[in-house]
């Protein structure tokens, strides 16, 4: 069966990058639009994960192997971005942990984790 529209060859090849953009925008949108602080942290994590995928995708080449020195292996994927992303994952975990810890404290102090209710209380304070 023929497809009604012709898909350019670049699109399947760039699939990872399309996923990166969709994830990034979805995560960022959640950070901006949601008033629930936990959901904001979820959005932030998705946003960060999108960047991890970007780094990992760009270093992978077709048929590329892990960096093992062997005569049989002719082609290598670049391992450096993977290592960088290990670091970035650690940073991401720390950020999420700290963010959630702060949210626990916010709930103790305000009794809510909805941003509009917190802002309401802050307005009443002053």
């Amino acid at each position, binding site marked *: 069966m023929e497809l009604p529209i012709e898909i350019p060859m670049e699109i399947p090849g760039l699939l990872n990058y399309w996923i990166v953009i969709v994830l990034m925008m979805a995560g960022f949108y959640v950070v901006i639009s949601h008033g629930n602080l936990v959901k904001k942290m979820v959005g*932030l994590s998705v946003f960060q994960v999108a960047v991890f995928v970007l780094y990992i995708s760009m270093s992978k080449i077709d048929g590329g192997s892990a960096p093992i020195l062997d005569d049989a292996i002719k082609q290598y994927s670049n391992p450096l971005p993977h290592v960088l992303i290990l670091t970035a994952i650690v940073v991401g975990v*720390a950020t999420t942990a700290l963010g959630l810890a702060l949210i626990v404290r916010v709930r103790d102090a305000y009794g809510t984790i909805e941003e509009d209710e917190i802002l309401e209380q802050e307005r009443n304070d002053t």
Partner: protein
Amino acid sequence: MSVLLSAHLPALQVVLPLISAPLCVLFRRAGATWLIALIVSWASLGISILLLEQVIANGPISYLLGSWAAPWGIEYKVDMLSAFVMLIVTSIGSISMVFAPNSVNAEIPEDRIYLFYTMYLLTFCGLLGITITGDAFNLFVFLEISSLSSYVLISLGAERNALTAALRYLILGTVGATFYIIGVGLMYQMTGTLNMSDLAERLPAVAETRTILVALGFVTVGIGLKLGLFPVHVWLPNAYAYAPSVVTAFLAATATKVAVYALLRIYFSVFGTKIFAALPIDEFLLLLSLVAILSMSAVAIFQKNAKRLLAYSSVAQVGYMIIGISMVSVTGLTATILHLFNHAMIKGALFLVLAAVFFRIKSVKIEDMAGLGRMMPFSMAAFVVAGFSLVGVPLTVGFVSKWYLILGALEKGWWPVAGLILVSSLLAVIYFWKVIEVAYFKERPAEIGAISEVPAVMLIPMWVLVGANIYFGINTGLSVGAASAAAKLLIGGAP
């Protein structure tokens, strides 16, 4: 000093605060941890001075971490600019640590004080790391070390608003840092390197591609979020207003300055000046910072809380620094780098005075400061002198940096910009006068008891900064010499 030790100073500068932070957690005693933080700060100041001397004598230092050769391993690079910024960070750190114990003991619960000093040391380590590293990804790691620990520092504030301020900063700060790594990732994709000097060599060949221009955009917005660039400064006023007083003084004087340094580094040492022809980001920054210096100074006038007032003023002052960058000239950059130094001393001094005020009257609302001019004569006198410097009165450092900024604007033929800088300085007079008027010309309500001046351990650090404001305002040779040498390096070093 042994040759071995002096060769490893760049690594020590970062490692020293990094390993003493967990030491603080082991000791857990407020006094002991303060002592560690104090000693480490002063030792780092000593290292900064030694590094600056080495740079002046022998030129830039390149330090290979673990002896891995440069483009592959991580390189620490100390040139005139980074040595100068390190000097700013370490001297503010040392001074605020002398000031800290009274204020911290009063504002932070006893069982959390050791965490305060731990986080302070980590922030300190991160800030020094940003200034010393020659690797674009390593810069991200240090950026996050300093940011994560400063979120904790801010959340230690006594009021509950400190928590939401810290969380808001965390969300925006993380978005900023993530934008920065997107930019670095795109650059790596095009060049295959992360080392800054290596990037500078390889970027011109691909500078016109859309990938690199997008990278420039991402990096600008990412670092812009960290430095409180208008209009992405929204986290800053609350974070400064609700953080513990010493934290505000330390962060206001160092964190945004280091972010401006990172921007300078990325623009001029990595991308080079030619990139502005491909993407007119300099004009974009000029426009934003002009709006910043006018609107933020105007917003500052209407603040009721003195800390918030100074926070908005900080956003405006960062605007001056960005105007200098947008000139892309030696005079403009000299003004920016000078203002890094000068503004650190001005805001450091002003926020230390507010810390002293809070120590005595438990409030920094302007209305509560009535009559303080007579009750706390030395503190308020420091506030007045540092305020003069903020406005830019001659014989203070504030005048010197504004002088160079206006000189740079006139050099470019930007008369309206020079005019707007003067207008914004007049707005600074107004918001500053609001505090002075209440403190000096209003009687303290009789029902509230008299208060006394703060102890000398708090007055001396404050007055050291105020003294520096005047000393470097009169004897401009030292700071202007270092700033213009760094500016020439940035402009000339661009390929």
